[in-house]
């Protein structure tokens, strides 16, 4: 067993420092380069992302495809190397400690859930085999008979009531059962932090809530922290306390989930909220911002990445990226409408006094 953590704590043990945040991300950047010599192109997939996440807490990262949200997930799970920035787990800089590859110790503690459990489970192996292998690899079943440990994992994810589940193959399960099996496999590592990348977007609306409730119970019972990456604002609101909105690699707005979604300030967040289908008919209000999508940000581009689609675009938006402003408790927005000297958006004159944290 690798002893990656300097304090020698076993992976899966309770945090040594219970007070500090479980995970801190500071100034995370990721550039992807393609081509060679004069055809070399740089795409700035993630720019200056910072946030904190406590044990048992869930934080949402919301954005459209291409916004860089999955790259953030992969950076935190250490499937990609960041170009710059720090990732601290229990206050330890994991990139400084393990610069090239994450140790198995880190991978025990930080586990991922993927969007499509049909492709993350091996179609030629049974559920029981998947769990058995995970227990073997993570060495967490020491002393327990394998069958008992497997049954325990199945009970943890609510699959114990399904007869003969351990002997079934992924194609014999429903979508929700497959995702539960993938979560059981992940639990075999006894993670302290889960990075869930669109865990419910392939599932029927009617079973999504069951998966999110399961993840909420695991957080509450075991103090697991979760970063929920999704394009679905309703699930971010339902299962996270804090939400960040990402566009073209940058966090444009963040805040307590229900405040942010009830009262979005950034024009992009407003567009996202207004686009959600509603039973009573489409949301009223001005036409959503111009069509388009987050383009790849390249070096040398300045200004707000959303400017080209923004209904409130001003001259300054093309030249400078707005700094963070703090329009309410726990809230942060990067938009020139809220900058110093700006009166705020015309629609919200009542919001003039801004609290700083």
């Amino acid at each position, binding site marked *: 067993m690798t002893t990656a953590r300097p304090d020698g704590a076993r992976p899966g043990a309770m945090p040594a420092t219970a007070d500090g945040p479980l995970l801190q991300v500071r100034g995370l950047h990721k550039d992807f380069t393609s081509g060679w010599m004069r055809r070399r192109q740089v795409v700035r997939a993630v720019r200056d992302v910072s946030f904190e996440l406590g044990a048992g807490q869930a934080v949402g990262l919301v954005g*459209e*495809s291409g916004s860089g949200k999955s790259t953030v997930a992969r950076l935190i799970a250490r499937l990609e190397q960041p170009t710059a920035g720090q990732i601290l787990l229990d206050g330890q800089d994991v990139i400084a400690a393990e610069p090239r590859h994450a140790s198995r110790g880190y991978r025990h503690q930080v586990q991922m859930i993927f969007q499509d459990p049909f492709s993350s489970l091996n179609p030629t192996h049974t559920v029981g085999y998947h769990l058995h292998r995970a227990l073997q690899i993570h060495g967490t079943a020491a002393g327990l008979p394998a069958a008992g440990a497997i049954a325990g994992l199945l009970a943890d994810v609510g699959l114990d009531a399904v007869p003969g589940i351990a002997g079934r193959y992924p194609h014999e399960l*429903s*979508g929700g059962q497959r995702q539960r099996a993938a979560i059981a496999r992940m639990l075999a590592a006894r993670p302290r932090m889960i990075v869930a990348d669109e865990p419910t977007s392939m599932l*029927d*609306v*009617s*079973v*999504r*809530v*069951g998966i*999110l*409730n399961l993840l*909420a119970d695991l957080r509450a019972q075991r103090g697991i922290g979760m970063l929920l990456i999704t*394009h*679905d*604002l*309703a*699930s971010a*609101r*339902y299962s996270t306390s804090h939400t960040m909105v990402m566009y073209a690699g940058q966090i444009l707005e963040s805040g307590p989930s*229900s405040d942010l*979604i*009830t009262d979005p300030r950034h024009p992009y967040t407003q*567009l*996202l*909220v*207004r*686009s*959600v*289908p*509603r*039973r*009573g*008919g*489409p949301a009223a209000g001005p036409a*959503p911002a111009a*069509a388009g*999508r987050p383009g790849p940000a390249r070096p040398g581009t300045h200004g707000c990445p959303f400017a080209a689609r923004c209904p409130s675009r001003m001259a300054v938006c093309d030249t400078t990226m707005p700094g963070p402003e703090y329009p309410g408790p726990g809230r942060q927005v990067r938009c020139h409408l809220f900058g110093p000297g700006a009166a705020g958006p015309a629609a919200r004159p009542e919001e003039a006094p801004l609290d700083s944290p």
Partner: protein
Amino acid sequence: MPPSEVILDVAGLSVEFPTARGVVRAVSEVSFQIGRGEVLGLAGESGSGKSTVAHAIVRVLSRSARCSGTVTFRGQDVLTLGGPRLRQYRWEGVSLVMQGAMNALNPVLTIEDQITDVIRAHRKMPRRAARARAPELLELVGIDPGRRGAYPHELSGGMRQRCVIAIALALEPDLVVMDEPTTALDVVVQRAIMDEIDRLREQLGFSVLLISHDLDLVAERASRLAIMYAGRVVESGPAAQVVASPQHPYTGALLASAMSVDGQEGRLSELPGRPPDLIAAQPGCAFFARCSQARPGHDQQVPALLEVAPGHEVACHLYADRELAR
């Protein structure tokens, strides 16, 4: 309220698939009508049979499927069509936008060629004239006609989906069947495409059968709604009425399990259990095992659709019991 001019009339449609394990009855006695220019929403969980209904209407079921009942399109019996008349019915009468349609495009042909292909397969027309239609169609669905020479991989998911819709509209069909048209897309793109479809429908006057598991999406766009469960329509009626006061316990549970961006009080509950196995047909209500209001005897007979309000029908024993009690 029956629609003014009925474009499509589905009556008692059942579809069975023989398999090694037995006969799967995927669709049982489904009936509905779609009027000119109307959007009918068909919602239900995976495996409820909603896509099979779509495939039966467009006649793209596999050869082994056995259909009974009738599907009448503008007075023409669809299930017995064959040869050139079937060919004409598909695409000129009814077109289909499939789930994940953006992967339905041929990767080695430009989008212009794919539009031209569809037109030339149905209309005797010189290539040049067919080609001239491509920019018009692309413009119609909000794609810069200058991109007509692009290959599918050069377009975003939303643009590919718009291309598929352009192809579906190329021969001016009276009905477009959309099976999960925006499921793989982001909310912003989804909203833009659904708005586009509404606009085109007003402009061109076609009808839409909109199929999705996302009840909120369907309810937002459809004037009438039919909810499917285990191959049957369990509730149908005006969309606003069905979502505001669902009468079938299944519709209620579906609505209650959907998270809302407007927030909800406390913890939602997942609909417990799974839809039944459609091979081992149960005698009674298919929702019996999962229903919170099931009573003894509800597993004896399949409930019939009863009208509970004008145009609002429900297949549930609770209403039959109430009728008897009167």
